């Protein structure tokens, strides 16, 4: 018996799965297509690395045309690499359930015994891995192309800022995913709208300190803002001088945002899933 029920319990893949095992297997199963795509579909190298790199190059040349300090070029490279995560969170997390609905998978997810949180976690884990490959490539190629010199002041803090940034960003993505369950094609436009404004407010291509304190503080609700500022402060000689807050404060804030977004994702998923079922929106197509 490969899949089905036995004695009232679900079995998956020949083994008995329930509770945390089912949760873990569901998450792994959803992460799998996002991992295997790196091997099966090579075009991602062109579209996911070269395309963002081209945008990053344009911003670098704007700085070069105006004789900007070298570290600002490094800021752009880091911003370009981290923006890959934001794009992944928007399109492959936030908007993903909309596409799953369009292609008919969403109803299958709901019917299956696995938890929707596990599905979202699998999407997040798979997305994190594939995006890390892309971001690392952008960082490496961009740094080589433009001769960026890093001066890392604290590896543990840098690692903490990066990891917490990913948890907070993907927690936010999981929250978006459930909210987007209720949207139709307006979701596509809203995701599209969340690109440039966030790149502006988070200081993706310039130090966030260029804004006044309250604008920067407000923009910090998006984890990308504090993550970029902390990573830049820890990676460049001039980083601390152009920083918004103390790095330890920013790391602590990222930890807080991680918890808030994960809890918010769980609550909103429950409520919006119930609402979507009640309103019959899980299988409708509003393309």
């Amino acid at each position, binding site marked *: 018996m490969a899949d089905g029920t036995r004695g009232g319990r679900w079995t998956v893949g020949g083994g008995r799965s329930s509770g945390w095992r089912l949760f873990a297997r569901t998450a792994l199963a959803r992460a799998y297509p996002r991992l295997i795509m790196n091997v099966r*579909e090579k*075009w991602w190298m*062109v*579209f996911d690395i*070269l*395309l963002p790199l*081209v*945008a990053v*190059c*344009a*911003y670098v*040349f*704007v*700085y*070069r*045309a*105006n*004789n*900007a*300090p070298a570290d*600002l070029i490094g800021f752009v490279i880091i911003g370009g690499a981290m923006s890959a995560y934001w794009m992944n969170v928007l399109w492959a997390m936030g908007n993903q359930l909309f596409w799953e609905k*369009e*292609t008919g998978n969403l109803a299958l997810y709901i019917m299956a015994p696995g938890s929707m949180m596990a599905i979202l976690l699998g999407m997040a884990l798979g997305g994190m891995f594939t995006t890390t490959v892309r971001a690392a490539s952008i960082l490496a190629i961009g740094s080589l192309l433009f001769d960026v010199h890093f001066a890392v002041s604290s590896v543990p803090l840098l690692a903490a800022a990066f990891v917490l940034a990913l948890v907070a960003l993907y927690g936010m993505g999981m929250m978006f995913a459930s909210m987007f369950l209720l949207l*139709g*094609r*307006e979701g596509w*436009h809203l995701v*599209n*709208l969340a*690109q*440039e*404004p966030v*790149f*502006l407010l988070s200081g*993706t*291509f*310039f*130090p966030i300190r*260029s804004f006044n304190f309250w604008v920067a503080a407000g923009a910090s609700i998006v984890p990308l803002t504090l993550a970029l500022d902390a990573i830049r402060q820890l990676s460049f000689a001039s980083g601390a001088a152009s920083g918004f807050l103390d790095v330890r404060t920013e790391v602590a804030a990222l930890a807080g945002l991680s918890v808030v977004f994960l809890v918010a994702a769980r609550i909103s998923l429950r409520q919006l899933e119930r609402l979507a079922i009640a309103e019959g929106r899980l299988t409708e197509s509003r*393309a």
Partner: protein
Amino acid sequence: MWASLKTATWLGWQIESNWASPALFALYSIVKPLTSAAILVVMFGIVTEGNFGSTAFSYMYIGNAFYMYVGAVMAGMAQAVVDDRERFRTLKSMYVAPVNIPMYLMGRGVARFLTTTLSVAITLAFGVAFLQLQVSPSTVRWGLFLPALVVGIAMLATLGLTLASIVLVIAHNSWLVGEAVAAALYLFCGAVFPLEVLPWWVRPVGYLMPVTYWLEAVRRSLVGGVATEYPTLASIGDVQLLVLLGVLTVGSGAIAAATFSRCDRLARERGLIDRTTNY
């Protein structure tokens, strides 16, 4: 043929605008382009200590504003094929109906042109009102601006048709093709910086692209002095610039017609018109 263009324009306008209330759509049309321009404005402000009255700023700001047409018209036409084939699944109906497909695709491009014109106008108005952008209706050289705009949009439509034709026969990443080409042109055509900043071995790509000459003509017509500030195309006169743009547009049109003819036949032979990849 004209009925196809007109109907496609109306359809495109509906698709672009009716997903939201008019107020939300207007907000969307304002926020996205302004924030996109604001990124460059802040970057420029940081390194020049807010010298927005300079020609360098006008060069960058106007180039960025008008480049919106490239992404919208050219990439939009390619995206129309993906949308109609994969999302709405109506491309096969278009082919069955007595519709001129190239004109239909151009009509979708016209709709994008109309929506983008709102964004370009708002971006320019913001620059004039708040950023010392030296553009004034009384100083604009309309005799250069209007022909450049018309020929430029026609040129973008031919580039869009070429991309849309290619999208007809590819499955993987088809929705990214327009965006990828638009991003590449943004870099190689020096939309927001002079071509001299690029490495010498990359510059010839920019000189081959009609978008480079179009943006130069638009800049010259809106703010004089740009041509003398950067040596990129300073040796080319206004009339020569328009002629060059026209010749490149005709060449681009010939390539578009040949590409569409070839890809359209391939798509029909291979049964790709109604393909849905869910990709």
